[in-house]
């Protein structure tokens, strides 16, 4: 009997050796190869945002069904894998690692990435420098610098292009500002919030009046983490920037004082402040956040009555954004190039997107024209007016966004940001909630990051 088991295991394990022998290999030493003539354009993404942009705005795109379309005689295939549980990245990784051996019609041509994990792909040869497609720096001259920084690899090549800019502002309740600060004028309010010391003084005032400064300590995380002076990982060691420790310190003080909470973003508790009966003074968010996400249109929502105002806040930051990358091995390089150029640099299309989708597009002249009022939009009665936001009580937030976009500095972006940012917030929640000492919470953070990225130490 024992012999039998042994022989089965032996057979099985030889099989296994064969199987694992040809696992994933890096593209080190691989060459950039792009070509034309492919019949199928495969686009990998995690939701339908880019798809609907292409469907609505790319000239000549024909919808076949929910996940297919055609451009000329090329079939466009949308490979949508949800982000949940990292499923998108896992799938994309498998596809890219097998890119060389994949059949021509299965090769990924375009894939989308988010800022948090951009460098994971940017610093590999799986993403082609856009210059290899024939896209020049002049083509991208009107785009915001930070959108290029995010996707610039260590050799200085730009590996992706985005159609959006997501600079953020501080969004405050006008009625609370009036009550506590005496005015709801953005300029005056900004005076109370222009740096973190003033921010915390104002937080104390808010608390005295029975309000929470922010809904959650996590609200201000991006503002701190976008303004660090060092990377998360230095020489294979996890490094916690001073500014992040400042976030921990400030947040702990605020949570302990009862000026904010520790809710997860997007949870019901967190979004309770979107409504009139909420007690939250401010949120931090980019353009896309203000409208839809804050429940505009719902009865009882502050947004519906235009009860919010926007101020620059203590520091500039950005939130979100999607970049288009061309995959190494694409067999539709001219088409990829055209899609990138049309969707991110064509001024007409860009303005269409602003008007149709309320997106903040990655085109400085367009946005600045709208910000200054040079370019008008049509209001409900068809009259040409300066751009304004109903949610923000008629305020035009674009000058602030434009200024914010200029200030975003992403030179300290790294390949481990997504995992580190997530785990840092999760671990610190334990400290804020009083379930752990700072040391224990930091230990937990190190442990969690090392589980996620086994090669790192601290």
């Amino acid at each position, binding site marked *: *009997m024992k012999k039998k088991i042994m022989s089965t295991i032996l057979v099985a394990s030889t099989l*296994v050796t064969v*199987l*694992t022998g040809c*696992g994933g290999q890096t593209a080190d030493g691989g060459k950039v190869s792009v070509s034309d003539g492919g019949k199928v354009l495969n686009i990998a993404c*995690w*939701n*339908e*945002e880019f*798809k609907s942009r292409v469907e609505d705005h790319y000239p000549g795109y024909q919808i076949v069904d*929910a*996940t297919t379309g055609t451009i000329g005689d090329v079939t466009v295939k949308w*490979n*949508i*894998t*949800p*982000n*949940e*549980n990292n*499923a*998108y990245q896992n*799938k994309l990784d*498998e596809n890219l690692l097998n890119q060389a051996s994949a059949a021509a019609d299965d090769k990924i041509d375009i894939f989308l990435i988010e800022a948090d994990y951009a460098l994971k792909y940017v610093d590999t040869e799986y993403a082609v420098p856009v210059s290899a497609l024939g896209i020049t720096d002049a083509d991208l001259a009107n785009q915001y610098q930070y959108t290029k920084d995010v996707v610039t690899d260590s050799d200085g090549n730009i590996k992706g292009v985005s159609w959006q800019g997501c600079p953020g502002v501080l969004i405050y309740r006008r009625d609370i500002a009036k009550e506590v600060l005496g005015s709801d004028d953005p300029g005056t309010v900004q005076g109370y919030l222009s740096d973190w010391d003033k921010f915390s003084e104002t937080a104390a005032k808010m608390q005295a009046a029975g309000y929470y400064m922010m809904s959650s300590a996590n609200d201000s995380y991006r503002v701190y983490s976008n303004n660090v002076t060092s990377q998360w990982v230095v020489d294979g060691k996890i490094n916690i920037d001073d500014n992040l420790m400042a976030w921990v310190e400030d947040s702990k003080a605020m949570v302990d004082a009862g000026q904010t909470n520790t809710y997860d973003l997007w949870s*019901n508790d967190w*979004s*309770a402040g*979107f*409504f009139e009966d909420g007690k939250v003074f401010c949120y931090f968010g980019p353009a*896309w*956040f203000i409208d*839809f*996400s804050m*429940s505009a*249109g*719902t009865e*009882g*929502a502050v947004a519906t009555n235009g009860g919010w105002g926007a101020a620059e806040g203590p520091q500039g930051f950005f939130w*979100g954004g999607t970049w288009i990358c061309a995959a190494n091995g694409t067999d539709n390089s001219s088409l990829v190039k055209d899609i990138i150029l049309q969707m991110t640099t064509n001024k007409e299309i860009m303005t269409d997107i602003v008007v149709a*989708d309320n997106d903040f597009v990655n085109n400085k002249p367009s946005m600045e024209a709208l910000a200054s009022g040079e370019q008008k939009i049509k209001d409900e009665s068809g009259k040409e007016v300066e751009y304004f936001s109903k949610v923000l009580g008629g305020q035009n937030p674009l000058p602030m966004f434009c200024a914010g976009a200029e200030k975003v500095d992403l030179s300290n972006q790294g390949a481990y940001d997504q995992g580190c940012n997530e785990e840092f917030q999760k671990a610190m929640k334990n400290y804020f909630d009083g379930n752990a000492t700072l040391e224990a919470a930091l230990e937990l953070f190190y442990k969690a990051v090392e589980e996620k990225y086994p090669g790192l130490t601290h």
Partner: protein
Amino acid sequence: MANNSGQHLKKGMNIHVRRALAYVILAIISFLCLCWFYILVINATRSHADLQRGFTPIPSNFLAKNMNGVLHGTLPVFYGLMNSLIVSSLSAVLCTYFSSMTAYAIHAYDFRLKKFMFTFILMIMMIPTQVTALGFVQLVDKMGLMDTLIPLIVPAIAAPITFFYMKQYMESALPLAIVESARIDGAGEFKTFNTIVIPMMKPAIAVQAIFTFVSSWNNYFTPALILNSDKRKTLPILIAQLRSADFLKFDMGQVYVMVAFSILPVVVIYLLLSKFIVQGVAMGSVKG
């Protein structure tokens, strides 16, 4: 005498009190079991913004709009439903049929490896799926079966837990004399199994079919590793996709409609076969 009747009276009251208590507790438990379905349905009738405000027990009027959003959205709901049905029902059929066959092999025959096989299957009975997931995906990939439904269906043939249940059931409900008499009548072994054993196993098969169907229907873990093209996705994956929709389309109301929509078929199947479940679980375990 008086004493005796007093005791009787006390006992009678006692029963009434106990019965009342039983009804109260059963009512609480039934509430705990059913309220989730109520909440799901309520949430499915509410808009995203409404849901963001927190929970209320009063239905809203967004059901049609949410349903419309799901059906006319770009999610392949119809394919999802079909794929889930195909995977779950084929899994249920294969699992119950072959588990019965395996159990029958151990139950009805005497062979050298019998004891070893039985021990072996019991040993592997509870290995968590996650333990072998890694190798499973690598293997499926090498076999060229990625993005097909096959790796979600075929492995159901080797289901140690179902086998164990079938075997227990056979011991209490399948006398070998019946098999003997079939042999005397000249039936082949395979025919005996199909025409005599399987019909006798019906209650057990019904129970295990429902269990397999439900667990396969609700499975997110394995399909998420294997499937990627829209026409192959199962309902749990579509729900996950809905939950990671972009900011303009993110809509919890639609998520709840999808959840309610995907629970409905299981509930219907369960209610239809619940008679078998209540009886069947009993039969399989009486003689554990």
